[in-house]
């Protein structure tokens, strides 16, 4: 079991309220991602759940039990930190054994659990090394191993991949997703990387300035962003958001169209613009278009390759069925 409920939780540091009253339910077995720009309060929220920070008002319930005043050790949660936070003076084996030792588990059971975790995480050959002798990816695996052996009711991940290089990050992302499928334990994962959020999450919680902007499945957020903030934050490259007469034509204050929902022609189309930079990725081409008269720079994503050069005039046609409309407050118009 691992259901976590936040009820009217607030957090203030001195006079500054970083989390205004917030309600959130994370269901048992769910992979929930907190995503948002840096400083949006996502890590603070995770630390409140972990018990590493005290909440100012409100309640936290874990599996129906009020955990508001419980110390971290008593909440039955395990956490993986951005910096790995391994114990540098202990071998990998001792690092993984530490939570078991603290729980007073006998040595035989400890060994069984460590061996099983090491096998699952490909760490068997490294058990007698110290963290300083491991690569970043291996260290992160040790940190995950240390979390697994406790058999917690939920795992908390605080930007666990941001210290890894791009290739390793993709690999670890898959490993964590697979781990979730295998264990079916609740996971809460904090990241500022919306690609991680989209690829891993069952449920994404988009945060801005401590406020939940939207909660939903990755595709729900992609197709039906509740406001301009979520529209701009989810999806890569970012959604093109336009205001002014073009938006007014659609009875809205702001309209949005994703780069992949625009087609490009050299002869005709709804909008006209000049090619700035074209990024050729092979599988896709990102064209940054200037002088459309609609917004500073519009981004278009074309599948495959297209022969355009800097300064070329091109015509753009949005897929009108995929147009997003927002009112003056930035909220979605259905």
């Amino acid at each position, binding site marked *: 079991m691992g259901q976590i409920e936040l009820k009217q939780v607030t957090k203030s540091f001195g006079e500054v309220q970083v989390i205004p009253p917030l309600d959130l339910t994370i269901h048992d077995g769910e992979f929930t991602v907190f995503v948002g720009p840096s400083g949006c309060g996502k890590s603070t929220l995770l630390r409140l759940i972990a018990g590493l920070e005290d909440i100012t008002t409100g309640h936290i319930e874990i599996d129906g039990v009020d955990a508001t005043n419980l110390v971290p*050790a008593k909440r039955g949660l*395990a956490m993986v930190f951005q910096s790995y*936070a391994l114990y540098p*003076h202990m071998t990998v084996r001792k690092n993984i054994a*530490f939570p078991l030792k603290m729980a007073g588990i006998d040595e035989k059971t400890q060994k069984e659990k460590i061996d099983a975790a090491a096998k699952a995480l490909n760490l068997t050959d490294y058990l007698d090394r110290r963290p*300083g002798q491991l690569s970043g990816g291996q260290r992160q695996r040790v940190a995950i191993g240390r979390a697994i052996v406790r058999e917690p009711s939920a795992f908390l991940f605080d930007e666990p991949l941001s210290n890894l290089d791009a290739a390793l990050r993709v690999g670890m992302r898959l490993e964590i997703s697979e781990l979730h499928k295998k264990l079916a334990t609740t996971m809460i994962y904090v990241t500022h990387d919306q690609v991680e959020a989209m690829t891993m999450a069952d449920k994404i919680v988009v945060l801005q300035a401590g406020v939940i902007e939207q909660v939903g499945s990755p595709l729900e957020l992609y197709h039906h962003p509740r406001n301009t903030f979520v529209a701009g934050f989810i999806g890569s490259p970012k959604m093109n958001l336009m205001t002014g007469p073009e938006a007014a034509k659609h009875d809205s204050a702001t309209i949005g169209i994703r780069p992949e929902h625009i087609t490009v022609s050299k002869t005709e189309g709804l909008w006209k613009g000049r090619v700035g930079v074209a990024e050729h990725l092979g599988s896709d081409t990102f064209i940054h278009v200037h002088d459309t008269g609609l917004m500073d720079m519009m981004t278009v994503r074309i599948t495959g390759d297209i022969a355009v050069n800097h300064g070329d005039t091109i015509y753009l046609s949005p897929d009108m069925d995929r147009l997003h409309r927002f009112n003056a407050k930035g909220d979605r118009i259905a």
Partner: protein
Amino acid sequence: MARAISPQRKFLTTGAAWAVGLLIFFPILWTILTSFKTEAQAIASPPIFLNFDWTLENYAVVQERSNYVRFLMNSIIIAGGSTLLGVIIAVPAAWSMAFVPSKRTKDILLWMLSTKMLPAVGVLYPMYLIFIKLGLLDTRTGLVVVLMLINLPIIIWMLYTYFKEIPGEILEAARMDGANLRSEILYVLTPMAIPGIASTMLLNFILAWNEAFWTLNLTAAQAAPLTAFIASYSSPEGLFYAKLSAASTMAIAPILILGWFSQKQLVRGLTFGAVK
């Protein structure tokens, strides 16, 4: 990029470093040399540097007249005891200041240090009375306590700076792993801070070993450490430089040797690799 250093410059700086080193070491060297002279050679004018009849007579006389081992044991117990007690008190204090600081933490640290600015003699009288009242005069226990109190600000300051370098996330990880405060300090913080704790202990052991004001004023015969052993050769029968030097050499030898051999042990580096 390392700067290129010309050979001449290297020669000059090396020479200057040696000159400063010798200047600082000279009084100790002179004491050691004098301890092997006769009393007449010790006060000869102009002073004799190396060209004298080397003799061990002074050591023999000192050994015969005083119980060196008893003074030595007192020094070890007082310096060791006060250092150990100080560290036991300072580890939790430094932990709280480094990891759960309050608005006043910096003020408290400065205030503690300010007590070191008070001339010791200013509190001699009240301390003496307290010692009489508590029956601590001329006891090792009394000296252990007093030297611990005197060095406590330095121990806390040093540990505080070492602890500040330990990433807080590692202690948070320990808390998540189910460690209570005691386990956190015992199994995680202390082992990681061992190089820092060791150098702190060594420095304080040396400070306590060399402390002369309180050890001379609060002891008579029972608890007198090596500082009193040296002092006993300077007063009653006038000055006997050669014997005084022999006593001094015997008193400083253990701490010199300890300092020499522990240099290399104090290299830090254990905490690398935990946090990128």
